[in-house]
């Protein structure tokens, strides 16, 4: 419906001119209206009277209304622009002004007084004796649902008007009070005003009858409204109770809970939240909670909230919130929109949990994944999976790259690896180690493999694996890792090579001193062979040769030759420069071999050697030559130590013993002069020697060999004279040698 906006609506009552009242009198009028045209007429009348009386006008209105008012004023022949220029007419935007003094959805008294007081002071200073004010801010708030805030503004506005003694006109659309539930608020608003002017329709009722009927209708409406109000109150009580129940629940829930209204402002925080932040509910309400959010997280956090809120979508986000001890904790916040049973949107409810620990774990996991990835990317570490039934062999493809091949160059079957890549020398030992694990004798498989690179070079890999058993006892897969250790191994090999060269040098030196004894060992069988052979020649030269005798002789020659070969073999082993080879060894055997080699030296030096060997010793893993060298060295040292002893005392004892089932101890005990206590350690130093012809590194090498075997070598003096050398070696498992 369009009608002439300039026409004064019939029945519109104009308020009495406040100017006619005493200036000090409190004048706060409430104008109700139905149509904007009525409002414009009423307000323009109010403004126009003031302008004509030379008073200043402060008009706080919505933009649309301001325009309508000014149009009306022009209709009345008033020059609005001039009044504005002269500071007599001061239009302010309702929304903007509101925003200047509203804090967290509530009018700030200080700011309100400051803003309006300043405006009033300014117009007063411009020379206008009196000010009248029109305000629409309350109506704006009211329609936005912030009735309490509106009432509060009415209250402080009234106080301001009383203080400064100026009239205020407020205007509310009658539609604002259409909700019967707001009846009490309506009455409250009315009570805050000195004058209430009805809407234009009421006085428009032409006849007394019509007016009575209207009143009756209104009364009826009133009673039904009262009933509705009662019902509403009951519902409110139920709601309050249910809210109380909710709050109770929310407070006891182990999570942090918040709620917000349709304006996005928070209306509730549970006890857990408040205990967490250490702040009061009042501080957190509205947007107060956001003060605790980590500055870096606030913007993304609000962005998610606002976006989800406007879309009425649930959201989940993580942000850091300051705990009462000042520490920022990571929260996972899940928000969901709330709807009334009738589908009305009520705001959001959210719950938060502290995920800091989880984040840390996640971080650590991430780190470890990153490390693993870096390691695997570098190719040095990877995983493998061997199907024991089919021989299918999965390895990280990087391993193939590492070996100079493309993925498709090598099949995924164990045979492909064994035949083409695995170092032939490692196959036997590796298989033995694997089988020991499969039989359950070891808790895992561990072997340092040599693998051939495409370019022919050798790469070393430490391969570890396990055989996880399923609940049914079957173990079809062996799983494990590989680590490239070529550099480490090469360094180790270099050290080992140097040690081995030194050991060799030491061995040759030692054998040099033993050469007489060794010559004896060799020359004895050679003597027997030669004599036997020449005897045979002589027998055969005779006419009546006894062939049986010759046969016996030949048998003896073969036997003596075998003995000589054994000696040579032992010697070759000791003189050899072969690479260190670790193999399972029976230490008793090594001891006996060593004693056999030095036997004639002992005889020559009028020494007797006894061995007390523990039976059934477990095997040790070691290099036969080097261990024999250690024993030879220690036995020869013992001989030297007893060189000056009386012949009856020249005896040495070699013992083997199992210690705790974990290591074997070989002891060489002499009856010599003993070692001065200050030298017990020094004798292992390089170039330390007490003998005229000693090189001084025999024991140094021995100790290095012991260490390389994971064992120890030390000396001590016996209580009853002489010294003992003890040499321990770890056993390499439970299996007897």
């Amino acid at each position, binding site marked *: 419906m369009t009608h002439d906006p300039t026409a004064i609506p019939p029945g519109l009552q104009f308020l009495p001119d406040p100017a006619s009242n005493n200036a000090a009198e409190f004048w706060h009028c409430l104008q109700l209206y139905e149509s904007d045209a009525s409002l414009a007429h009423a307000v323009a009348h109010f403004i126009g009277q003031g302008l004509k009386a030379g008073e200043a006008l402060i008009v706080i209105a919505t933009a649309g209304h301001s325009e309508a008012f000014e149009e009306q004023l022009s209709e009345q022949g008033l020059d609005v622009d001039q009044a504005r220029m002269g500071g007599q007419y001061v239009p302010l935007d309702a929304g903007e002004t509101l925003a200047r003094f509203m804090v967290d959805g509530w009018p700030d008294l200080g700011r309100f007084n400051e803003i309006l007081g300043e405006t009033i002071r300014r117009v007063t200073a411009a020379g206008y004796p009196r000010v009248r004010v029109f305000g629409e801010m309350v109506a704006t708030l009211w329609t936005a649902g912030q009735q309490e805030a509106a009432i509060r503004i009415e209250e402080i506005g009234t106080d301001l008007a009383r203080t400064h003694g100026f009239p205020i006109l407020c205007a509310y659309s009658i539609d604002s009070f259409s909700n019967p539930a707001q009846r009490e608020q309506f009455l409250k608003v009315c009570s805050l005003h000195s004058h209430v002017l009805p809407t234009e329709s009421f006085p428009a009722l032409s006849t007394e009858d019509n007016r009575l009927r209207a009143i009756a209708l209104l009364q009826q409406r009133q009673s039904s409204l009262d009933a509705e109000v009662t019902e509403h109150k009951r519902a409110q009580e139920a709601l309050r109770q249910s809210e109380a129940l909710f709050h109770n629940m929310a407070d006891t829930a182990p999570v942090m809970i918040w709620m917000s209204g349709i304006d996005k402002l928070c209306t509730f925080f549970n006890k857990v939240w408040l205990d967490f932040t250490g702040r009061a509910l009042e501080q957190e309400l509205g947007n107060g909670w956001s003060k605790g959010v980590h500055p870096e997280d606030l913007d993304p956090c609000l962005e998610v909230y606002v976006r989800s809120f406007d879309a009425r979508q649930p959201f989940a986000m993580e942000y850091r919130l300051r705990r009462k001890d000042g520490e920022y904790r990571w929260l996972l916040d899940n928000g969901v929109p709330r709807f009334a049973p009738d589908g009305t949107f009520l705001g959001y409810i959210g719950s938060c949990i502290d995920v800091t620990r989880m984040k840390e774990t996640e971080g650590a996991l991430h780190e470890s994944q990153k490390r693993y990835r870096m390691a695997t990317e570098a190719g040095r570490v990877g995983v493998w999976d061997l199907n024991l039934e089919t021989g299918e062999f999965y390895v990280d493809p990087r391993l193939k790259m590492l070996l100079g091949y493309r993925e498709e160059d090598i099949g995924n079957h164990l045979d492909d690896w064994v035949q083409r890549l695995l170092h032939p020398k490692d196959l036997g030992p590796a298989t033995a180690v694997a089988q020991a694990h499969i039989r359950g004798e070891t808790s895992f498989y561990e072997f340092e493999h040599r693998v051939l690179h495409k370019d022919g070079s050798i790469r070393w890999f430490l391969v570890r694996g396990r055989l996880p058993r399923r609940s049914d006892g079957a173990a079809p897969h062996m799983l494990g890792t590989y680590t490239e250790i070529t550099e480490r191994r090469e360094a180790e090999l270099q050290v080992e090579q140097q040690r081995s060269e030194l050991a060799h040098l030491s061995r040759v030196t030692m054998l040099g001193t033993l050469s007489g*004894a060794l010559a004896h060992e060799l020359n004895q069988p050679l*003597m*027997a062979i030669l*004599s036997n052979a020449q*005897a045979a020649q*002589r027998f055969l030269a005779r006419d009546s040769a006894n062939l049986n005798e010759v046969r016996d002789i030949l048998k003896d020659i073969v036997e003596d030759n075998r003995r000589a070969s054994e000696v040579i073999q032992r010697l070759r082993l000791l003189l050899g420069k072969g690479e260190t080879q670790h193999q399972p060894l029976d230490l008793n055997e090594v001891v006996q071999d060593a004693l056999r080699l030095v036997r004639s030296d002992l005889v020559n030096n009028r020494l007797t050697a006894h061995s007390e060997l523990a039976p059934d010793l477990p095997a040790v893993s070691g290099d036969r030559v080097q261990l024999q060298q250690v024993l030879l060295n220690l036995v020869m040292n013992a001989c030297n130590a007893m060189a000056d002893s009386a012949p009856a005392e020249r005896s040495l004892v070699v013992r083997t013993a199992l210690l705790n089932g974990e290591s074997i101890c070989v002891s060489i005990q002499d009856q010599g002069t003993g070692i001065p206590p200050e030298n017990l350690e020094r004798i292992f130093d390089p170039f330390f020697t007490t003998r005229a012809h000693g090189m001084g590194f025999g024991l140094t090498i021995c100790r290095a060999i012991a260490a390389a075997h994971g064992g120890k070598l030390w000396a001590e003096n016996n209580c009853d004279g002489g010294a003992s050398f003890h040499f321990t070696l770890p056993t390499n498992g439970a299996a007897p040698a």
Partner: protein
Amino acid sequence: MNPEPTVFLVDDEASVLKALSRLLRSAGLNTEAFRSPEDFLQHYDPHAPGCLVLDVAMPRLNGLDLQRALADKGAQLPIIFLTARGDIPMSVQAMKQGAVDFLTKPANDEDLLSAIRAAIDRDRASRQAGAERSRIRQQLAMLTPREREVLHHIIAGKLNKQVAAELGIAEKTIKVHRARVMKKMNVRSLAELVRVAEHAGIKPARGAVQKRLII
């Protein structure tokens, strides 16, 4: 006549002992083998001729010890040392102690056999010399003190006249003594008597000879 010489073998190694026995047997020699010096000493017969083939390096008593032990007993048995290790100080010591030879194992049969033969010859010679010595000693024991005195002078190359003058008895009496000495000592010439006396270790009387030399 003495029995056949025997080669005594001492070595702690059975195989060597067995082979050496065979070799010597093949060369027609008698052998007797012992596993240790102690064993040998237990069975040692000083009258048995032959030689000893002895290993040096043996436990407890070694070859040199046995050599000393035999020397202490006054045994003259020639010793050939066999050593499996060419040890110079030891061989020097062995030779100083009177070893016939010092051979290094493995020793060739010719070397060993010739050493053994030489040793056996030496043993035989020494046993013969010993026998003659004892015979001469028996003959000397039959001489009267005066005859012994005359013998000393005669083998010094003095004339009867000179001896008579030195002893202060008649030249004629000296002639009788001289004839008895020659008879008792079973010699026909002065030269023979001088040799026998020398063999028996009898020193010629001095003084007069020096005078003669001065003249």
